[in-house]
């Protein structure tokens, strides 16, 4: 049995040639329209009266260079806080969500407490929690008071734990009851069912909103600076106060966006993957 070499028909060749032409054509059109619009915008922006002032006030390279080391040092604090607080808040949220979905009348007070916690901390402005914990609590002068960063981190974990708990709960409740029934019929205990059947599916389902909340947390960790520590935004504020120029804020803003890009990219990728699984998988 010899394999015949595949030779595309005349029509097929014409079709693929046409497709190639079309692809080249559309890329060229896209490129030229982008170039035209880009040129128009650049001319409009740089030609606008006051562009020089905008550049001086927001885009001064020298001031940006001077401010960068301090802002980066501050950003390092943001990153460390983010990692610790994200881990803490995810863990706390998961625990609260599991407590809120416990069954049986005996667990009513636990469910009520967990529900009360999420209601309270989702409603409380983060600033209030931060002030109470970082400046109010140390005023009690108790033994073994943790440093201000730990207290600030705790405020963030408590607040974001409330948001994440609700996301997890939505995930847990979205797992179809038939899954539970099947698990029980196999003889798994409630704990095993949660651990092996429900939670894996729940977490996978709500990964995008979870990551979304983590991205939001990334911007809010800086608020700990109101209790004294210098984060990226605070460093930018200090630099701005010295030069009366807003470039340091722009520098900090750009760094934050750069920091968020990987997180957002992961979020997009996870969303896409889960969408594919749900629809076509």
């Amino acid at each position, binding site marked *: 049995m010899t394999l015949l070499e595949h030779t595309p028909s005349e029509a097929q060749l014409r079709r693929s040639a046409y497709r190639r032409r079309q692809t080249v054509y559309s890329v060229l059109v896209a490129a030229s329209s982008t170039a035209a619009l*880009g040129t128009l915008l650049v001319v409009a922006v740089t030609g606008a009266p006051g*562009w020089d002032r905008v550049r001086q006030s927001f885009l001064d390279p020298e001031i940006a260079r001077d401010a960068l080391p301090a802002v980066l040092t501050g950003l390092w604090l943001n990153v460390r806080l983010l990692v610790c607080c994200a881990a803490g808040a995810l863990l706390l949220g998961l625990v609260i969500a599991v407590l809120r979905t416990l069954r049986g009348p005996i667990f009513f007070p636990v469910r009520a407490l967990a529900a009360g916690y999420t209601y309270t901390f989702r409603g409380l402005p983060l600033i209030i929690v931060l002030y109470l914990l970082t400046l109010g609590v140390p005023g009690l002068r108790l033994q073994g008071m943790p440093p201000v960063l730990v207290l600030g981190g705790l405020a963030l974990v408590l607040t974001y734990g409330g948001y994440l708990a609700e996301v997890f709960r939505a995930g847990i409740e979205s797992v179809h009851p038939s899954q539970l029934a099947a698990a029980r019929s196999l003889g798994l205990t409630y704990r095993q069912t949660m651990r092996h059947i429900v939670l894996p599916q729940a977490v996978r389902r709500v990964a995008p909103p979870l990551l979304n909340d983590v991205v939001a947390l990334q911007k809010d960790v800086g608020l700990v600076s109101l209790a*004294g520590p*210098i984060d990226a935004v605070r460093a930018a504020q*200090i630099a701005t106060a010295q030069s009366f120029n807003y470039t340091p804020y722009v520098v900090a803003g750009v760094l934050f966006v750069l920091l968020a890009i990987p997180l957002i990219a992961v979020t997009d990728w996870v969303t896409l993957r889960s969408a594919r699984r749900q629809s076509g998988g």
Partner: protein
Amino acid sequence: MASRSRLLALTLAGFVVAATAGCAPQDEEPTPTVTAAGSCTKDSLPTRTPGKLTIATDQPAYEPWFRQDKPDNGEGFEAAVAYAVAEKLGYARADVTWTRVKFDTAIAPGPKSFDFDINQFSITEERKQAVDFSAPYYLVRQTVIALKSSKIAGKTSLADLRNARLGAQVGTTSYQAITDVVKPTTKPQVYNSNDDAKKALQNGQIDGLVVDLPTAFYITGTEITDAMVIGQVPQVGVPEAFGLLLDKNSPLTSCVSTAVGQLSEAGALGELERKWLAQVAGATELR
């Protein structure tokens, strides 16, 4: 395709923001200042009461600016400055009469019941619209305060503060004083307001708080009574300046200003500062 259009949308948004920000610049024109010149002698000065000099301050007048709320005893930094200026203009102590005017009243536009007022008035452009100021008689110094129980209580040199955890309000000369002059080994703590910073000081979250000298005396005198002034830091940044306040376009302004300027150049004001603020009031000069 989706990602490319998103990128385009983002750049577009950026350009739009930049373009709107770049529109319609407005220039502000500086207002010209007029100075009157005249001979500065007791006989020719058009004071409220001829041959007498009426000086105002607030009631109550606080330490270290005045002592025992009695301006006419000439004790306290501002009382001493007032008498020094009077003397420079040719008025003996007996020719000086004191009157009491509220801070806010003195600074408001309108006719004045004094020749000049000395009451820790910072010279600002806004205030210059309503009143006249003399040349500055005091450049505000940054001062470290701490709880009496703090580890830096009673320290007398900058070197003693190197290992302290200091705090200040963001964007202030006080913060600059920490970073540029004290240069502590521990990172300074920064607060949105002096109220937050004071709370942190009371909580023991910082060893020392840097504020300007008038604020330091106010905090340690009335707000946190178990805090004390550690000392003054060498001058840094662009300090606030206190000036004598006169009526808008007062005929005395240039003469009073000249007198203050001469006292300042002769080092007399610096001497009064050392005597009344550092020695008597206890704001040690940290070196």
